[in-house]
């Protein structure tokens, strides 16, 4: 399959998913509410004299975004089970990698929207500067990595009885490394350290993204075969 066709079909799948979500708004409302509630609980439930904001913020940022993303990823293939639309997708004469890629694009836009809602709240509650280019880059690279793996596992688990439980159980081991790198880089950047000090983490996150996006595109057809 040629790349323009792959990308065109992927975009068709992604824009359809986003339109379905725009119409129903069920996932975005529930995940956004989850993000706001978690950040409020962390903000009001901590002893502000015990740990400094700069030390606490990276962990809270990544805990919040990780669980919000898992909630979002759980719904990625659920919409295809309704009315057996997944069969229609698998019957279409398209590269099955384009289905994965479309889901990945839609999930990334969805999770990015959640992060855009969460970041100002983190800045407000923890009095840290989050809208700086290097930190946005760290968040973007880490998000691509775990959403890429999560989208693949979402396809694998969607037809199982305990899909909502299985997805985080399978996904979390794969998230440990990028989360660790992202949290370390976030801590340094929030502490005002220069970009050069986190360049190594950024490189590793970029390599992780490339490896897992390529692997997921290759493995996806096998995960959806009966």
């Amino acid at each position: 399959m040629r790349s323009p066709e792959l990308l065109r079909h992927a975009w068709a799948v992604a824009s359809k998913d986003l339109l379905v979500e725009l119409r129903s708004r069920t996932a975005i409302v529930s995940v956004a509410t989850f993000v706001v509630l978690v950040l409020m609980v962390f903000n009001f439930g901590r002893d502000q004299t015990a740990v400094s904001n700069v030390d606490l913020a990276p962990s809270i940022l990544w805990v919040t975004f990780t669980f919000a993303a898992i909630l979002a990823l759980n719904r990625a293939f659920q919409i295809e089970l309704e009315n057996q639309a997944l069969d229609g997708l698998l019957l279409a004469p398209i590269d099955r990698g384009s289905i994965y890629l479309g889901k990945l694009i839609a999930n990334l836009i969805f999770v990015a929207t959640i992060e855009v809602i969460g970041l100002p709240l983190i800045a407000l509650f923890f009095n840290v500067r989050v809208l700086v280019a290097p930190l946005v880059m760290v968040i973007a690279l880490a998000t691509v990595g775990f959403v890429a793996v999560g989208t693949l596992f979402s396809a694998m688990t969607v037809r199982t009885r305990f899909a909502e439980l299985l997805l985080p159980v399978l996904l979390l081991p794969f998230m440990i490394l990028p989360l660790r790198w992202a949290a370390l880089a976030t801590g340094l950047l929030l502490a005002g350290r220069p970009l050069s000090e986190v360049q190594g983490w950024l490189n590793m996150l970029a390599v992780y993204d490339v490896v897992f996006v390529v692997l997921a595109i290759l493995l996806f057809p096998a995960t959806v075969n009966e």
Partner: protein
Amino acid sequence: MLRAEGLNHRFGAIRALDDVSFSVQPGQTLAVFGPNGAGKTTLLRVLAGLIQPQRGRADVVGGRRAIGWIGHQPQLYAQLTVRENLGFWASLYDVAPPAELIARLGLEAHVDRPVRALSRGLVQRVAIARALVHDPTVLLLDEPFTGLDRVAAEALSRLLGRHAAAGRASVLVTHNVEEGTGLATDVAFMRAGRFVHFAPRAGRGAAQVAEEYRNAIA
């Protein structure tokens, strides 16, 4: 147009397909009758490539692009309008949304309504339009008349007639002998994953086929 050779498939201890072989030529409509659990849906899913058989092979001339599927479920997105649904499926086949098909199925007045707001009969009509959006040469139909209103059932029968007259092939599976016989050029009876009868209909009516079916399945 379609050939199945030695298809075998099990789900655990259940033998869903047991050495099934047949072919369907241009202009043929094969109706496969069988009780629930006979393996009819598995057979269609194997023909469509949705299930890889454990043994044997199924080939459709033209591959996935040639296949149109009408099943129990409409394969539509409830939140999207009829136009958006058909536009999406057409884009996956790199064809334009089928205005003529929409008119033929009497859907013009409903194109901008979300599928969730349509009656079951209308949803089934949209599902038929979705299955035919790319003008398939082989139709696979799984209990296609289930839930159809009279208008949709007539429209589907007309479409299947036109499909066969254009030299195209169909495989229809159902447990309802009466509704399937009228469309069939060939009939097969399926029991416990096996074809126990496969022959041209040769002018036999629904009552005669139904009696043969009862005898073969008993």
